[in-house]
């Protein structure tokens, strides 16, 4: 049991409120856009756009219109474009209500690691460090454990950090955890997941 990618994305979409400006990371977070329903959500693409629309129809791709993942996208009637300094000005300035991001590791104090594995190829942090430092609320969406079955929800991150104490909410295939004073609080269990199961897969302190 537990949630699949789409269910995790749908659960993350529940965190978004009418009128919010939101930044979605690459991977599962991108799917969140499919589940916002009637809510008036404006998506930011940090390469310089508010009001990101869906992928274009075949033949309508525009090389001048891409998202932060370098994919061709489209514009909406609310869209505005701006330069990268302005874009990250609004991110650092706290104008983006929430970022929904993937992660390699999250720690019980809200530390986040999602940009680098030492000894492996280093690609760079892109805009992730700016996003976690600046947006109103950081929501992580990821699998609870890695492919070896080890917890990704840790007492302390082992990988180089993207941000210190920046994560507010963790949504995994097993449930939803909130970062609180002394650790993590269980907000919700995924379908068919027991509290024991969630605790068993979590290295971090659950309070």
């Amino acid at each position, binding site marked *: 049991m537990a949630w699949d990618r789409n269910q995790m994305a749908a659960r993350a979409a529940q965190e978004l409120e009418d009128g919010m400006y939101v930044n979605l990371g690459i991977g599962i977070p991108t799917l969140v856009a499919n589940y916002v329903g009637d809510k008036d959500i404006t998506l930011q693409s940090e*390469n310089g756009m508010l009001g990101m629309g869906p992928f274009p*129809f075949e033949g309508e791709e525009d090389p001048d219109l891409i998202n932060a993942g370098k994919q061709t996208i489209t514009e909406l009637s609310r869209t505005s474009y701006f330069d990268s300094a302005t874009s990250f*000005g609004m991110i*650092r300035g706290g104008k983006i209500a929430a970022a929904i991001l993937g992660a390699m590791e999250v720690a019980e104090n809200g530390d986040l690691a999602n940009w680098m594995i030492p000894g492996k*190829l*280093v690609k760079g942090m892109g805009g992730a460090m700016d996003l976690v430092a600046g947006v109103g609320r950081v929501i992580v969406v990821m699998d609870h454990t890695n492919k070896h079955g080890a917890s990704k929800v840790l007492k302390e991150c082992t990988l180089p950090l993207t941000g210190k104490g920046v994560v507010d909410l963790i949504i995994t295939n097993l449930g939803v955890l909130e970062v609180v004073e002394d650790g993590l609080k269980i907000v919700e269990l995924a379908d068919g997941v027991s509290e024991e199961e969630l605790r068993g897969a979590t290295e971090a302190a659950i309070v």
Partner: protein
Amino acid sequence: MKKIYPDAASALDGLLHDGMQIAAGGFGLCGIPELLIDAIVESGVKDLTIASNNCGVDGFGLGKLLDTHQISKMMSSYVGENDEFMRQYLSGELEIEFNPQGTLAERMRAGGAGIPGFYTKTGVGTVIAEGKEHKDFDGETYIMEEGIFADLSIVKAWKADETGNAVFRKTARNFNPPAAMCGKVCVMEVEEIVPKGSLDPDLIHLPGIYVHRLIQGEHEKRIEQRTVRQKEGA
């Protein structure tokens, strides 16, 4: 004063020297100064430090300058699309200074605006903060980042008038304005040079004061990730 040059090579004449720092506009392959990059390849200038969010892809954009070993250092936020980059980096031929994307953009904008240093929360508590000055404001810790003052800016716009007033198109704007601002000299390539007066003064993205030399040319505008959706019921 004439800003218009016949081609990229003539527009760069006298501006290039080994060991110089160049700020380049573009994000991924979107809005990159293709023609100027090609002319820099041709020039053979080497030991370049390049401030650019990315380093092109293998064989296109700034990736061409990697193939020719003309770059010694990159200041970037993401270089994951480029195998040759990784090879040169891991073999020690190439230095990389990682900058968070917003920090890089702001450092360029700051350099252009006469601001040698500013404080940001971005990167506090990470490797990015190591060796940088820390300072508390209102109970929160920030790090100081320095403005970038490049020897040369190379940027790409959509259209410009004869005085260099420029407009960009959609997300091809990206790093081009801040990169243009931070160079001692800025060379811009555009798809079309239009007569003075044909751009609405209210709607100019980058005033001509930032643009010293200007060329018009054909652009390939390669797409890096072609993603599409299906027409429903088609």
